[in-house]
């Protein structure tokens, strides 16, 4: 329909998760606006660590018209209700940061104020007891949330999947949408001398792939945005010192599968355990300034809760982001644009977010408008910076003093944007409010409380009602949550009841 507009030639560089998500997104959602060529090389491995996701991935998959069951089957996916953080605030303590909220506000006073008051009076249970998502996770149960505004709608879910299978799944989907795949190594980048725009990528065998718009999904190498355009990098190592990960799959120890990811704080970082249908993903994210690679691998193997299925492999990274994620006619998506460690499973979200904004702001009439580029960069920066502050909180809100690493992160100077939030919480138990980007009040409260950073004071109005009445209301909520959780099937039972979601080799 409409007048025929010349389709923009988009060239995606890189065949990892971000590359194929970008290709599938553009080809699927803008079929009349662009053609998509993707260049990948079998000689370059993909990182593919992002095994745990956020609920937003569902919207992306749904928008592309992908069937959830087929997607879960192909990627050996399990359901995820949140992350269990262990030993972060203090060794021996743990809490779940759920895809969901805690309790309900009463008379414009947030639930956590009442919880703090009841806890002071010895009348409150653990905060997680008031979250349906936390309780379902702890009970290893799962059912899809309701689509109304009841208690059963207070949580969401994501997937834990095999990232090395997700990329290929998206590849098959994208190829079905008409994306042309080119196997080869890029050896030269041609640019227009006047505008500086990239005009073509030259492959080792001499092929030239021309394009109007280039999406750099080349991972940390950032071939176009970083190497060619020399776009500045804002380094966040001083706040997020982890710069390595050792990753290794192992077998499941038990038949039960947790509907959540575990993140365990370690002497020089933290360790993930992500249950997939057929195996457990493990990794140790660490700071190379505080721990050697071999030691990290040994620690990972020693901690594995199952038989290793491969040797640990080391990934190197640098936390930070490009000053501009869209420069000239090059857009960075995924690691080429920025990197934040997978502590809150944000990697795929950040790629998806950039793809969504690129689609919204896709050049109109074959021309890139600098205003759209500026808008894209504004939005991408906002998203990265908000996630960054939230991650730093996990390291900073601690009493751990058992290693150099924890001494550093506990005492470091945090960004001003975070320092103000921390002080507001400590002085008055209030959360700086925003409604865009990731991680709202419930997430901040989960981490503050879970890591033992309790405020000095809370809203005085919580002391007004009869404590027995408030305690009664809290108990009723807990019991209702308990009742609903008890009515949910087990995570494995739910997966088994949906055979179409199971990989052939799984469980």
């Amino acid at each position, binding site marked *: 329909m409409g007048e025929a507009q010349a389709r923009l030639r988009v060239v995606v560089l890189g065949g990892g998760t971000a590359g194929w998500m970008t290709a599938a997104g553009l080809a699927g959602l803008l079929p009349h*606006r662009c053609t998509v060529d993707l260049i990948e090389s079998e000689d370059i491995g993909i990182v593919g660590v992002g095994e745990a996701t956020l609920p937003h991935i569902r919207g992306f998959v749904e928008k592309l018209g992908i069937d959830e069951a087929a997607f879960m089957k192909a990627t050996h996916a399990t359901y995820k209700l949140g992350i269990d953080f262990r030993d972060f605030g203090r060794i021996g303590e743990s809490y779940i940061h759920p895809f969901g*909220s805690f309790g309900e506000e009463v008379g414009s006073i947030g639930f956590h104020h009442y919880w703090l008051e009841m806890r002071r009076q010895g009348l409150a249970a653990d905060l997680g007891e008031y979250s349906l998502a936390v309780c379902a996770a702890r009970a290893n149960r799962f059912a899809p949330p309701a689509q109304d505004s*009841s208690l059963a709608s207070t949580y969401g879910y994501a997937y834990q999947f095999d990232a090395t299978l997700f990329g290929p799944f998206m590849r098959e989907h994208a190829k079905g949408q008409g994306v042309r795949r080119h196997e080869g190594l890029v050896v030269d980048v041609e640019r227009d001398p006047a505008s500086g725009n990239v005009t073509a990528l030259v492959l080792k065998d001499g092929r030239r792939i021309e394009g109007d718009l280039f999406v750099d999904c080349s991972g940390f190498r950032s071939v176009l945005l970083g190497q060619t355009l020399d776009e500045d990098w804002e380094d966040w190592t001083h706040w997020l010192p982890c710069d390595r990960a050792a990753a290794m799959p192992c077998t499941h120890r038990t038949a039960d599968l947790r509907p959540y990811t575990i993140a365990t704080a370690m002497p020089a970082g933290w360790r993930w355990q992500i249950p997939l249908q057929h195996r457990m993903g493990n990794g140790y994210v660490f700071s190379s300034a505080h721990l050697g690679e071999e030691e990290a691998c040994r620690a990972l193997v020693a901690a594995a809760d199952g038989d290793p299925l491969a040797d640990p492999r080391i990934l190197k990274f640098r936390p930070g982001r490009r000053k501009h994620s869209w420069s000239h006619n090059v857009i960075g998506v995924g690691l080429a644009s920025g990197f934040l460690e997978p502590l809150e499973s944000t990697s795929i979200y950040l790629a998806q977010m950039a793809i969504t904004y690129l*689609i*919204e702001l896709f050049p109109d009439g074959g021309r890139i408008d600098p205003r759209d580029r500026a808008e894209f960069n504004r939005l991408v920066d906002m998203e990265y910076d908000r996630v960054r502050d939230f991650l730093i909180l996990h390291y900073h809100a601690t009493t751990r003093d058992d290693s150099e690493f924890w001494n550093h992160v506990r005492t470091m100077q945090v960004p001003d944007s975070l320092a103000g939030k921390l002080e507001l919480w400590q002085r008055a138990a209030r959360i700086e409010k925003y409604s865009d*980007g990731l991680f709202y009040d419930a997430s901040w409260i989960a981490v503050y409380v879970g890591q033992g950073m309790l405020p000095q004071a809370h809203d005085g109005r919580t002391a007004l009602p009869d404590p027995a009445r408030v305690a009664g209301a809290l108990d009723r909520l807990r019991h209702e949550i308990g009742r609903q959780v008890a009515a949910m099937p087990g995570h494995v039972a739910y997966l088994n009841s949906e055979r179409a979601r199971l990989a052939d080799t799984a469980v």
Partner: protein
Amino acid sequence: MSAPRERLRRVCIVGGGQVAVLTAVAMRRTLPDCQVVLVGTPADPGAYADRALTALPFTNALHERLGVDEQQIVARAGGSHRLVQRYFGWAAPDSMGTMAYGAELDAQSRTRFAREWGGGPRNAGSGGRVAGSAAHSLAEVLADAGRFAVPPAGQATPLDGIDFGLRWNGPAYRDLLVAAAQARQVVYVPGTLEGALRDAAGGLASITVAGQGAIEADLFIDCSGPAGSLIALVAGDAWHDWRPCLPVRHLFHARPGQPLLALEDRATLVPQGWLSAVAGRDGLHLVLGYGEKVGEAEARAALPGQPEALVEIAPGCRPESWVGNVVALGDAAAWFEPLAHLNLDLAHRQLALLLEMLPGRPIEPLERAEYNRRAALMAAGVRDVLALHYAAPQAQVVFGQQVLPESVAHMLDQFTRRGRVPFREEAPFAPAEMAALLLSLGYPAGKGAQAGSHDAAEAAAARRAFDQRAQAVLAFAPPYRDFITSGAQATGNPVTDDLQY
């Protein structure tokens, strides 16, 4: 171990209008052990949050929270419902645009998880920012047919998610609030301000009321109108001047005309300025807003009906509406013309913010800063919505060209070129509502990047689904007059038979 903050012992509210009285009710409800003193100062005719005879859907939710019964407003204060706001002549001389409100336009954000967890519009599900879809709403279908009823609570009906602005008779509504304030033992002190004593922390220790002596309080709330008689004492003349972007300097109010039952209100661009018409069961309320170049005689001639009051206005806001222990609400915080029904909406959203961030003793500077940050975003959002009106094609002909705030230029650029509405924190309208407003004012929506990607069959299916829902709401909703006369005890005013203007 976290301890409860010491609560405020006495709150003193200054002002005689509906904002002050509702604030007093709210304070007594949220702080039952606090003395609330309402100093009833003479009403300021230029206080538009107090003069407002209607608000936006947010107020309905606030009323419910504060125990102000909507059915009572309908039964005893001439309450009626606005489903849509119509704009005549803003896009072109004979144009008409229609804006509806609310949840129906943002159906994807219905689950509590989607509202509470983060990720913005990309939250789980097929969220999008397609501007064009807001052009037709069920609210408009109902307004066109003159059918509506507020669905009974607690049961699903086809009308769920259709939001409205409530209108009322000013004095009767205020009487309802006064009764609520009396029932809650608000201490009422009529009088005028004589003086004030500063405290050491940049706020006030006490105020003096003529014939009443000094009144001390932990927190003072200034609802005195544009003069801001308390906030000015502690904040000086710090002021964000909105005049460069908002050209209206005078408002001519007509004596209320014939009672009128209608589901729509109107803002019409006329050669002299704009004419706002709010339908009331107590009469049709007309206001002409005009700029510097129009003389009083010319304005008087352009006003249909008998002139009742002429108000001069210099729109702007306080950069910080909470200074020391003084919080300004309503016109004391932001003063602007009654276009788009934002005056009371802003006052009520800032009151709700104060209830959320209610300080203890002593006040924490950081929570005051957070309040000021959010309150300033709310005010800026109002300025932007008003500035959008004056940048509309025909408004530029009538008023001349105004300074366009950068945030408005950004929004217009993104909307007209790309068909997207950038999200703004604390904005008065959700993105889908903003899209409807922009279309009503004559800004053409740019084609979204995905336009043309949906095939014709998909568009036809969406159309059919909408038509089915439209049939369902029309079948369910009674004629609006039946609903009003069945539910409401007569107010004594005969209501015209004509549902349309």
